[in-house]
């Protein structure tokens, strides 16, 4: 089982990258949703 640490490192880092990317999409989506609400309210008020 020589180099098993390398295999685990590759999979964990790889999955970590995908997870962080998904979190970044979710965060940006949530920010945009708030921004859309704010703009809709501002257009309605004017």
């Amino acid at each position: 089982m020589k180099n098993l640490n390398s295999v685990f490192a590759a999979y964990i880092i790889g999955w970590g990258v995908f997870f962080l990317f998904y979190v970044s999409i979710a965060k940006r989506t949530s920010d945009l949703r708030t921004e859309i609400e704010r703009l809709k309210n501002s257009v309605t008020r004017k």
Partner: protein
Amino acid sequence: MGKRVLLGALAILLVIAAAYASFYIAPEERTMGVVQRIFYFHVGSAWAGMDAFLVCFICNLLYIWKREQKYDWLGVAAAEVGLVLTTVVLITGPIWAKPAWGIYWTWDARLTSTFVLWLLYVSYLLLRTLVEEPDRRALLSSLFGVFAFIDVPLVFGAIRWWRTQHPAPVIMGGPGSGLDPTMNKVFFFSVFAMHVLTVFLLVERYGLEKMKSEVDVLQREAEAL
């Protein structure tokens, strides 16, 4: 929303199943031993990344031809997803290379062309941040995207056309190449799992780009009032 959640759950299940198959079903490779198991994740990510760039290229051409926003949205979504997949390839490759070759990196044709590909799509995304006007941004980035895609066939052909440190292809590598039948099944299952994950990320990223366009329209409306 429901379909997106289902697709996400399917992608996660398939990726976990592919990892299980890579560790417990695929036989151990004789010369490299356990470290060869990175192959299923590394090459699966590479193929999915190339296909994401192919989607980006097709969308770039369609935008230049039809000037419809949906092609720009899908193009940028595919570029970003392809870039993430290529980042995984560039991380897992050196982790595999160190025990196999004794070095993390070498400037051979395959590794260099992959790194250049990564830089080209980083430039594609940076270019989009520099142009404010949406139609001009979409056209310029589409033109650049068509140029950037030229590197994809170079990455594919590098290990076929030139002698490289990177191993020769075992899939579509011509006579003498190929995998053990069980390894082959696990490999194509991993490729499938990575493609489902890619589709899920593309759908999510496309939705984000669509929302950005909605914000642009609302901002213009708010400014006009």
